[in-house]
C-alpha cells in the first residue's frame, strides 16, 4: 500500500473519531446520576475514549479494505462468494433451509430457548415477506407496517375472546380486517410517492397504536387483552387436564404431557404460515398483477401509458401485504396469549423494514438471511441487556459496509427460456 493512501485513510479515521467524540461525548460521557437531592453529572471519559478509539480503528480498517484488495478483503470476499452460491443454487438453498426448519425441533441441541428464538425469527421472516410485497415488489416504502400486525393481533384477540371461535376461523378474519386497513391506508396515499409516502405510513402506524391505547372500551387501553385462547391441534387442546368431554393432545396421542408440544406446534404453525406467504409471493409475481407491481416500482408513467391502473395496483399491494401482516399478528396474539399496544411500537416497523432492505429489496431468500442475522444476533446478546441494541446496530453497519445493496441484491426474472431453468 502506498504511503499516501495510508496517510489519507489515517486522516479520514481521525475525522471519524472527531464525529464519534462529538456524539459519544455528551451521550455516553456525561452520565446523570441522582445523589441525595437532585441530579449530578458523573463524567465517564474512559468509556468515551474506548468507543472513539474503536470508531477510529474500525474506520481505518474499512478504509484499508476499500483502498486495496488485500487480505483484509476476506470478509467481503466471503460474503460475495456466499451470495453467489445462494444466487446460483437458490433452489437448493431453499430446499435445504426448509428441510432444516422441518427437522429443527427434533435436533438434539434444540431446547425451549432455541425454539422460542426460532419462532421469533420465523415471525419476522413472515413479516418481512409480507412487507416485501409492498416495499420490494411494488416499491412503496411503508414505515408503518406494524399497524397491520397490530390490527391482525387485536382483531384475532377480540374475536377469539368475544365469540370464542377457534383459531382457524379467527385467522382468516383477522387477515381480512388487516387487508381492509391496508386499503384504508392505501386510499389517502395513492397520490404520494417516495419520502412523502414513507411519512404518511409512519403516521398511520402511530395512529393505530394511539387508538389502541385510548379506545379503552374496546381495546382495554394500555392494559392490553389477556386470556387469548391458545390454538388447538385440530380441536385437541394442549392442556394437562382437559375440561370435561374434551380430549387433549397428549392423551389422544398417548404421550407424556409436556409444554414443548404446544411450542413445537406453534413453531410448525408459523413455519407453514411463513411458507404460504412465500409461496403466494412467488406465484403472484408471475401473474399480471404481480408483474404490474414490479412495473409500477420501475416507472409509474410508463405503466399509465400501457393501461395499468395504478390505483388498483397499489391498493392490491397494500391490501395483500397487510393481510399477511394480519396473519402474523394473529399468530403473535395466540402465541403470547396477551397483547398490549407496547408490542406494536415504531421500532417493530423499523426492524421489519430493515430486514427487507438489508436482505436486498425484493429478494425472498435475503429476507430469511437478514432475519436470522438481525434477530438472531440481538437474541444472542440478550444477556447484555440494553447493549444488545448495539449488536443490532453493528449488524446493520456490517451489512451496509460490505453489502450496500442488501445481502442478496439481484432480482430473478419470472420468465426463463427453456434450458435456462437450472
Amino acid at each position, binding site marked *: 500500500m502506498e504511503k499516501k493512501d495510508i496517510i489519507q485513510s489515517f486522516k479520514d479515521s481521525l475525522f471519524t473519531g472527531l464525529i464519534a467524540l462529538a456524539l459519544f461525548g455528551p451521550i455516553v460521557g456525561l452520565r446523570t446520576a441522582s445523589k441525595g437531592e437532585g441530579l449530578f453529572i458523573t463524567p465517564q471519559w474512559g468509556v468515551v475514549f474506548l468507543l472513539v478509539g474503536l470508531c477510529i480503528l474500525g474506520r481505518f480498517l474499512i478504509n484499508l479494505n476499500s483502498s486495496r484488495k488485500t487480505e483484509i478483503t476476506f470478509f467481503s470476499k466471503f460474503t460475495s462468494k456466499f451470495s453467489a452460491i445462494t444466487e446460483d443454487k437458490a433452489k437448493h438453498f431453499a430446499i435445504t433451509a426448509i428441510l432444516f426448519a422441518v427437522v429443527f425441533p427434533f435436533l438434539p441441541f434444540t431446547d425451549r430457548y432455541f425454539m422460542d428464538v426460532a419462532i421469533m425469527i420465523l415471525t419476522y421472516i413472515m413479516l418481512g415477506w409480507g412487507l416485501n410485497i409492498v416495499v420490494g415488489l411494488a416499491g412503496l416504502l411503508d414505515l408503518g407496517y406494524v399497524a397491520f400486525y397490530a390490527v391482525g393481533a387485536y382483531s384475532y384477540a377480540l374475536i377469539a375472546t368475544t365469540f370464542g371461535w377457534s383459531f382457524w376461523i379467527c385467522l382468516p378474519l383477522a387477515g381480512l380486517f388487516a387487508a381492509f386497513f391496508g386499503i384504508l391506508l392505501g386510499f389517502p396515499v395513492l397520490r404520494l410517492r417516495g419520502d412523502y409516502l414513507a411519512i404518511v405510513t409512519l403516521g398511520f402506524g402511530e395512529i393505530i397504536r394511539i387508538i389502541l391505547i385510548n379506545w379503552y372500551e374496546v381495546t382495554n387501553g394500555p392494559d392490553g387483552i389477556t386470556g387469548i385462547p391458545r390454538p388447538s391441534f385440530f380441536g385437541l387442546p394442549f392442556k394437562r387436564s382437559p375440561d370435561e368431554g374434551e380430549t387433549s393432545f397428549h392423551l389422544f396421542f398417548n404421550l407424556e404431557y409436556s409444554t414443548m408440544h404446544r411450542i413445537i406446534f406453534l413453531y410448525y404453525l408459523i413455519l407453514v404460515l411463513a411458507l404460504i406467504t412465500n409461496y403466494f409471493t412467488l406465484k403472484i409475481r408471475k401473474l*399480471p398483477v404481480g408483474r*404490474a407491481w414490479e412495473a409500477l416500482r420501475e416507472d409509474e*408513467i*410508463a405503466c*399509465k*401509458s400501457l*393501461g395499468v391502473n395504478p390505483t388498483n395496483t397499489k391498493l392490491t399491494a397494500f391490501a395483500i401485504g397487510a393481510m399477511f401482516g394480519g396473519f402474523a399478528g394473529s399468530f403473535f396474539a395466540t402465541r403470547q396469549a396477551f397483547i398490549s399496544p407496547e408490542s406494536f411500537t415504531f421500532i417493530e416497523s423499523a426492524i421489519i423494514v430493515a430486514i427487507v432492505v438489508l436482505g436486498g429489496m425484493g429478494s425472498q431468500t435475503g429476507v430469511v438471511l437478514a432475519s436470522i442475522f438481525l434477530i438472531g444476533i440481538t437474541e444472542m446478546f440478550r444477556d447484555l441487556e440494553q447493549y444488545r441494541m448495539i449488536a443490532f446496530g453493528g449488524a446493520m453497519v456490517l451489512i451496509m459496509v460490505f453489502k450496500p445493496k442488501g445481502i442478496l441484491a439481484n432480482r430473478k*426474472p419470472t*420468465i426463463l427460456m427453456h434450458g435456462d431453468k437450472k
Partner: protein
Amino acid sequence: MLKISNVETFYGKIQALRGVDLDVNDGEIVSLIGSNGAGKSTLLMTISGVNKAKRGNIVFNGKNIENQAPHKIVDMGICQVPEGRRIFSRLTVEENLRLGAHANEKGKYFENDIKEVYDLFPVLSDRKTQRGGTLSGGEQQMLAIGRALMSKPKVLLLDEPSLGIAPKLVNQIFVSIKNINKEKNVTIFLVEQNAKKALELADRAYVLVNGKVTIKGPGQELLKNKDIQAAYLEGGSKN
C-alpha cells in the same frame, strides 16, 4: 377517428397547450413536429389521459375521452410509446411485453401477439430473457413499440422514437412504423423533432408552435414549405 378540438392543458399556472385543433383519420400516419417545449409531448399525454385537458374536447370513435382515466383510454384502443422509451429496466424483455398486454393477458390470443412482436423485431426474440435495462437505445425503442402493440391499439401514439438512437437504427425503426401502419392496420400519430424523417413518413402533418397548431397539410407538401425548411429542416437533421 381521433378528433382534438380546442384543447388547452396547464401545468399549474403555466399553459402548455393553447387551443390545439387536430384530427387523425383511420389508417393514416399523422406527424406532429415542433421545437422543444412546443407542447408535443404534453399533447400526447393529454390524449392518453395522463395530463388532463382544462378546456376542449378529445373525441375517439365518437366518444369523448378527455375525462377518462388513462387505463380506460388504453382499453379503448389508444396506446402511447412514451418519450425516452421508459422501459422497465429491471424486468426482462418478455416481462416488459407481457405488461403491455396487461389488460388481456390470457390464452392463445396473447401468445400469438407476442409472436407477432418477435416477428416484427427479431432482435427482441433473441433477448427475451435479458433485462430491459441491458438493451441498447434502439433495441429499447423496439421493445417500447412492441410493448405498446401488445395492447392491440387502434391508434399508436409515438413520442420521439428517434431520440438518442444511432442513425442506422432510426431508419430501421421508421421502416417498422410504416409496416405497423400498413400491415397491422394501426393508425399512427407520430411526434418528432426529426422533422425530415417525420414528414417523409407522414400522410399528413401538423406543426406545433407554443402550444398552437400553425401549419398543417400533407407531409410531402410541408417538406417543400419555405417556413418549415427554414425553421426545422435546414442545417438540422441530415439523416
